[in-house]
């Protein structure tokens, strides 16, 4: 096992940031820690990295207790912080070389690793640039390169795509999957469910310092009643009785906003056909129709009663 966290408790005065937090990370997986802001993701990561003292619990990495002095363990970890942590006084190359040099003392090896890291994040054209000259997306890529240049076995990425444009975000996500293909175990925290769904092999959903659900994307979605979201554009919605829609089989809820009808239904066959038949019988014209599978937000909503993005 790569990481084994048991009963971790962290308090800030009266506020409980981590409430008997448990986590197991297996070799070779990409584990996503998903949760709204303030759910305890970063606190958990900081405790795992021994940047924060905790009140209770144990943390083991590669079967060794983690502590601020566990330098042998730290040598195998790559860290990409939520806030970009680079030297504004050093160039892109010098920054990556500095952080790589904290792990690799041999100059020749380091030179090769730095070149590979620059190549990996696509900063070849910006090697001599100072961070202040880089865009937000390039800066994030530099931050990642600084964290992964020494080729760690375990990489912890704390919200690496915050405030990044969609194109750069996709590049970063593809890069993370490539690192995983190369053999790295990855912990990825985010409050963007789409990212977590896209890259993580296993997802832990956090709220109020606890993991409230954990499993693969499919496992998590099977935990909830909601099966699909059916969206219909109605041409003459005034002739429709919403209560009749709600009384149809498998329908959990139905909401009509302006001309848009949104029906949430549980798993069942032919839900869409049943609704369409009903609307046809009522002589209600239909514009666009589309159906969506449940999202992690639905999982979070059903478990906690609130939106993931709240």
């Amino acid at each position, binding site marked *: 096992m790569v990481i084994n966290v048991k009963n971790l408790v962290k308090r800030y005065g009266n506020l409980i940031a981590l409430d008997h937090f448990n986590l197991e990370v297996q070799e070779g997986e990409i584990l996503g820690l998903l949760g709204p802001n303030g759910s305890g993701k970063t606190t958990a990561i*900081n405790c795992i*990295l*021994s*940047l924060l003292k905790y009140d209770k619990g144990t943390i083991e990495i590669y079967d060794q207790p983690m502590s*601020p*002095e566990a*330098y*042998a363990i*730290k*040598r195998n*970890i790559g*860290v990409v*912080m939520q*806030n*970009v*942590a*680079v*030297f*504004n*006084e*050093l160039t892109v190359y*010098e920054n990556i070389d*500095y*952080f790589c*040099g*904290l*792990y690799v003392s041999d100059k020749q090896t380091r030179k090769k690793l730095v070149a590979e890291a620059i190549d990996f994040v696509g900063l070849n054209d910006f090697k001599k640039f100072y961070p202040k000259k880089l865009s937000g997306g390039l800066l994030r890529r530099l931050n990642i390169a*600084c964290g992964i240049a020494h080729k760690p076995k375990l990489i912890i990425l704390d919200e690496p795509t915050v405030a990044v444009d969609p194109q750069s975000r996709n590049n970063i996500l593809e890069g993370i999957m490539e690192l995983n293909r190369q053999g790295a175990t990855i912990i990825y925290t985010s409050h963007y469910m789409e990212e977590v769904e896209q890259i993580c092999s296993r997802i832990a959903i956090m709220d109020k310092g606890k993991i409230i659900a954990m499993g693969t994307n499919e496992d998590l979605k099977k935990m909830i009643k909601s099966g699909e979201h059916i969206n219909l554009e109605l041409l003459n919605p005034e002739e429709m009785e919403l209560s009749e829609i709600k009384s149809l089989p498998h329908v959990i809820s139905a909401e009509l906003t302006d001309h848009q009808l949104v029906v949430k239904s549980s798993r069942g066959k032919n839900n869409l056909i049943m609704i369409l038949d009903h609307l046809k019988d009522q002589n209600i014209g239909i514009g666009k129709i589309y159906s969506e599978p449940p999202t992690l937000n639905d999982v979070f909503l059903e478990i906690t009663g609130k939106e993931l993005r709240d």
Partner: protein
Amino acid sequence: MQVYKAFFKVIQKNRAQILIYLVVFMALALILSGAYNPPQDTDFTKVKVNIAFINDDGDSQLVAGLKTYLGENANLVAIPDETQKLQDALFFRQVEYILRVPAGFTEDMLNGKEVQLEKTTVPDSTSNIYMDLLINKYLNTVKTYTTYLPGLSQDDLSQNLEKDLAEQSKVTMISNGTHSIYAEKSGYYFNYLSYSLFAILILGVCSVMLVFNDTDLKRRNLCSPIRSANMNMQMVLGNLSFAILTWLVLISASFIMYGSFMFTATGLLLLLNSFVFTLAVLSISYLIGNLVKSRGAMSAIANVFALGTSFISGVFVPQELLGANVLTIASFTPTYWYVKANNEITAAVSFNTGNLSSIFTSMVLVLAFGVAVLGVTLVLIKQRRVES
């Protein structure tokens, strides 16, 4: 040595600001100390006072002895004993002192009676005091003999007087050195150096500390497998190297200007004093570096601290001209003791236990300042670590 290398890369990135201070201050120090011309030494020449000696007592060995003795230490000018001529001689400074030996002087002296010589002098002249001292010396010696050897003949008395008054104290020159013309000039240069040293070290050290104390970078560094003690050691080494480099650059100008003088005892002491001061300033800069949170504050503190301490400690205005209260306040800064030691080093023609102990006391005080401030900084750092 990643931290050590990064330290100098940060310094290099801030080199423009540091170089401006360095060049401007060095130029100013060179101009100011170069423009200073110490007062020239004058040779000592013994000058004899012109006096008139008028004897109303008649010839006696005692009077003759007095006249001979005075003649050895003053120029006897013959002036006729006429009031008008004597007054004219005084007025035209032909003589500055007229001594009249009254009648019965010899007899009264030999009998141990009170004797009063008459004198006419130029008012407020120093020669007046000088002549009084000579005459009193003669009379007191006579009185000593007449009191303790009352039966002594005038002949013996004269011989004894001549022998005693010829006695001279031996004066040995303790000082065997010469005061170089560079001594005071270099003193000024090394005093000005304190200002530039303060400004440059505060700017350099603070600019690096601001970077390394950034919370995100600090946390990122803590994730690495490098021991905190190792990182701190590299940081201390970086600070020390930077301080020594700055000191070397600043003192190099003194070698260019004063050449071989810098290898004399005075020059070497000035160098030692400036090195000790560099360590104290480094310590203060390290404290400030751990306190400031922004570049604006850093520049403000560098200026206020460097200028403020320089003004009250006698860098720009000599300590002799500063008020007692100002100096009392200044004595709580290392600059005061540094300047004091500099002044003592350059004022000394040669060095002995007396002046060296005072100079080294000042240096030890400067060093003590540095150690005390470093102690406070380490406590502060530890306190912050515990709080965070």
